[in-house]
């Protein structure tokens, strides 16, 4: 009797305290749309989150190809394997909604990571870079370096047109250019893969390098290829602002071929996403009045942060990313969850 009373008391205390504790049965799957260096940080982020928050596991599962059907098939197999929380980069913002809803129907919390699902969907929220804002800020940095940008000519190298973020980036770069009185003389899209990026960027620079004052890149592969191209032609006159933290880009910043890069926060997305997944499995709910932002796809958006890294930050860009993560995590539960 006494034992029952004690157990009941403990349960009551836990229930009344409103706290949710880590659940070792939580198996989080972090699933990108396909192989891409941007997502590589998710693997460490999941492992760190599992260790730090006491989860059963938080594993990075990559579809071997960028195919919507391949990602869907992998997600279905993960359910069978016992994964019970999903952090997904949607292979397609609309096309992935159906599988996300099916996963949610199994009782698993589903969150979109690095890219959003188009509302309505059963995803609890979307955490990623505010791509438009990142492109805008990057272009501002570029134009500042170009003496304010008035009358300057810039080229924009970006990702796939089927990715809705691409149009947001194009619009943001144009907006920043117009504000500064600069001109975007060329947009090259559909090149977030090595082969088309090499072909188009090298061909463009071979023909028009002399006509360009600045380059803004808003996708990983074009940033790497453009950095290499500027190094090859030895041109430090053209000012370039890249994106992400590929070693090639960071080294080019150190060597003076690239002015800086707009860091995103894939590590933080994976780490905080895994933390949130476990909390949600442990009884927490997403606050109805959480201060989500709105973007072109969803009104449940959380900005995982972006920051400019120039020559002074090139050696400690990891610290810059960790700082963003730490700041976001510190207030995440209080801001977005009700436990």
């Amino acid at each position, binding site marked *: 009797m006494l034992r029952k009373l004690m157990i009941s008391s403990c349960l009551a205390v836990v229930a009344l305290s409103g706290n949710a504790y880590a659940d070792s049965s939580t198996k989080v799957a972090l699933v990108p749309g396909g*192989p891409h260096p941007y997502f590589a940080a998710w693997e460490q982020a999941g492992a760190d989150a599992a260790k730090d928050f006491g989860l059963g596991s938080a594993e990075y*599962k*990559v*579809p*071997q*190809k*960028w*195919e*919507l*059907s*391949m990602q*869907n*098939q*992998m997600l*279905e*197999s993960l*359910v*069978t*394997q*016992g994964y019970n929380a999903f952090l997904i980069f949607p*292979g*397609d*913002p*609309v*096309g*992935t*909604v*159906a*599988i996300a809803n*099916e996963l949610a129907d*199994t009782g698993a919390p589903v969150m979109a990571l690095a890219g959003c699902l*188009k509302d309505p969907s059963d995803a609890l929220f979307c955490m990623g870079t505010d791509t438009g804002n990142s492109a805008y800020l990057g272009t501002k940095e570029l134009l500042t370096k170009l003496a304010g940008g008035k009358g300057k000519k810039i080229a924009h190298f970006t990702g*796939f*047109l*089927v990715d*809705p973020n691409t149009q947001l980036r194009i619009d943001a770069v144009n907006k920043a250019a117009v504000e500064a009185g600069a001109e975007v003389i060329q947009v090259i899209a559909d090149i977030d893969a090595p082969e088309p990026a090499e072909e188009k960027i090298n061909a463009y620079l071979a023909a028009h390098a002399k006509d360009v004052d600045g380059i803004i890149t808003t996708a990983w592969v074009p940033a790497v290829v453009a950095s290499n191209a500027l190094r090859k032609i030895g041109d430090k006159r053209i000012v370039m602002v890249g994106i992400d933290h590929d070693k090639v880009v960071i080294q080019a910043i150190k060597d003076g071929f690239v002015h800086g890069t707009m860091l995103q926060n894939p590590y933080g997305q994976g780490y905080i996403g895994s933390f949130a997944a476990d909390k949600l499995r442990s009884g927490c709910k997403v606050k109805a009045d959480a201060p989500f932002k709105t973007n072109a796809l969803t009104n449940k958006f959380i900005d995982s942060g972006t920051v400019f890294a120039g020559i002074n930050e090139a050696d400690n860009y990891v610290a810059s990313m960790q700082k963003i993560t730490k700041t976001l995590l510190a207030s995440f539960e209080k801001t977005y969850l009700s436990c």
Partner: protein
Amino acid sequence: MNNTTKAADRTADAFGPDVQETSSQHPAMRLLLTNEFGLIALILVFAVLFTLLNPGFVSKFSLFAMGRTAAVNIMIGFSMMVVIITGGLNLSVGSIGVCAAMAAGWLMQSLGLPWYLSLVGGLGVGGALGALNGIVIVRSGLHSFIITLASMSIFFGVMIFLTHAGSFREIAPEVVAPGRMKFFGVISPLLLITFVVAGLLSVLFRFTATGRQMLAVGASPQAAELSGIRVQRMTVWCHALSGVLAGVAGLMLVSRTGAAIPSMAGQLGQDWLLPAFLGPVLGGTLLTGGRASVLGTLLGAFLVTMLTTGLLLLQIAAFWVQTYLGLLLLVAVLMDLLRRSYLARKKLV
């Protein structure tokens, strides 16, 4: 052997595997030699293997998901098969499938047409694009590889231009329901649709003059011409049928995803190329034309889907899945060869 006889003989080959060589043998013995029997045996072997290694393989969710994925892959295989029988190829199956799906989505969402008219419209677009391929091929005299390689980009590019890469989400519930429904908790209605189409294709090739003429054209165009078959017309019909079947696959994906999206078959529709070839080739459809195996294509595509699902369930590292899939397919083909050799040695056939 004159051309007419040759065409007739090779056309006969189209109706079933190894009919001529084994016509004097017992039907059960003939069955043992068929591709279809080999594929069924392989499916059973791998099903047992995967179930032993991971019992989740036969869970209701897994079986449902596998059947739904297989339904689309089989349909994609059919859309390639009906062109391969003419000795040609259709590299634009993915592109046509997406165009058909987007057309149906546009008719439903933008024009507000009833769902059944929209589906017919989508299939019509698929058929028209396929027929266009066929017309250009017979008029130009160029190989279908070149023409469909070009049309793959053209169709996809025009679709992206017209839709601005946007999706159509206002899909009628009647269209979306089959993608989510489960019969007995396991069977997807999409799989049943595939079986119905498989049945119709079997009837076409086995029991209709048009089907026989299509096969005759693939076996020997010259002989078919001499036999009075309008070769060019049959080629166009095959491509049109391929377009319709690609459209069916596209609409099945619309049902699956609840939306018509430009990326459903990847960039330029290229994601469909592998399943398009694997099913027919594993199933015994001759790349040189003249022979079709509807059941073989169905089983071949199902085997590939099953292997992919099984490997994913075994948690094979993602980047090794493709390698293991290739190895397993090689093993599958070699096992089939061994089976035939064994039967021949034992004089069972």
